[in-house]
């Protein structure tokens, strides 16, 4: 069993679907932060069989919960201060996401218009469907991002 030490201040993202931690690392732009990041893949989980975990030691205000909720709102977000869990954040699907994913529709204006943000709007909360604000193309699954 691999041991990863405690963090003093930051957050632990638990119950990440196995294999998705690198997507989240990428979308949260953790590579650009000058801080300690532990990526734990395929950890044993009673609830999920196996899961990924991300531990990030940084200022807790730097986390973009909207992006996280869009990727997977079942992730548990534990906020750590002084080595202890001080808060558990509930993830709510954001109404809009900006520049997280790109519209893949070649007929969309985003494919040619300079510096136009890629905005996706929550079109169906129940089915968790996002659509491009401009052409209404459905957002694909994460493998297409």
């Amino acid at each position, binding site marked *: 069993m691999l041991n990863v030490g405690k963090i003093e201040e930051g957050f632990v993202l638990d119950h990440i679907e196995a294999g998705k931690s690198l997507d989240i690392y990428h979308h949260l732009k953790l590579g650009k932060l000058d801080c300690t990041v532990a990526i734990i893949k395929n950890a044993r989980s009673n609830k999920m069989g196996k899961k990924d975990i991300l531990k990030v030691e940084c200022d807790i205000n730097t986390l973009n919960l909207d992006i996280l909720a869009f990727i997977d709102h079942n992730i548990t977000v534990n906020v750590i201060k002084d080595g202890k869990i001080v808060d558990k954040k509930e993830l709510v699907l954001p109404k809009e996401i900006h520049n997280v994913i790109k519209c893949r*529709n070649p*007929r*969309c*204006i985003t*494919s040619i*218009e300079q510096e*136009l943000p890629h905005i996706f709007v929550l079109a169906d909360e129940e089915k968790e469907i996002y659509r491009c604000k*401009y052409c*209404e193309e459905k957002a694909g699954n994460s493998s297409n991002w």
Partner: protein
Amino acid sequence: MRHLMNPLDFSVEELDKLFDLANNIEANPAKYAHACEGKKLATCFYEPSTRTRLSFEAAMLNLGGQVLGFSDAASSSASKGESVSDTIRIISCYADICAMRHPKEGAPMVAAERSGIPVINAGDGGHQHPTQTLTDLLTIRSLKGRLGGFTVGLCGDLKFGRTVHSLINALIRYDDIHFIFISPPELKVPDYITDMLTERGIIYREVIRLEDCMPDLDLLYMTRVQRERFFNEEDYVRLKDFYILDKAKLSDAKSDMLILHPLPRVNEISIEVDDDPRAVYFKQAQYGVYVRMALILTLLGIDV
């Protein structure tokens, strides 16, 4: 400031007001002949569309306004690489309202976000063409006196036809609408539409041939079945005649059924049908001008 991007941008109540205004314009054209004096409509057409552009221009001229614009991307600054955002900022300095057609989906919305004047989506690729849908609704409402309580047949290319999809979405806001989709299996209405109808409890039926449903229809909306949509020539040859409306097929239709078509027609409605009182597709083009006149007045906030 309001724009029109999607036929559903207006509530049913707002559409009623718009259509009342259009009918008033139809009845009293002289009353509106100077309503837009001193105002200019810019028609920014990044791809050619003669009928839609001329319909917008006729609408503004009928209101006493003036028009300026371009009719294809080659004659606009887009050919020099100018963005839609920049173009609309400039157009906002020249005109009071803009009708924009663009091959890229969502381009008029980008324009609306940056614009200082109201923008009307005059067709954005395969996405939306709201003034066509408003034209269809006004035609039905004017000739039938209502927009609910119909069995609507939609015939032809139901898979790719954006006018069909928009019309379905617009009609389901009214009570007691039933649909019959008449198309070859290759060009069936997409699943997301039939799923949505099922979810809302709206009754629909899918048939292959016009003859399978003609006596049931109150409205028949014809569209073109294009050869290039078929996988092979044999299927096209086998099926194409099912979707050509002629006098013989009309013999089973109700006497007060309306035949609509977004035009241009190629051969899907035989010319012999044109004189039938049920054929209203040319009247539809006239209603297209009235509804665009009403839209220009509404978006400019001009009361007459």
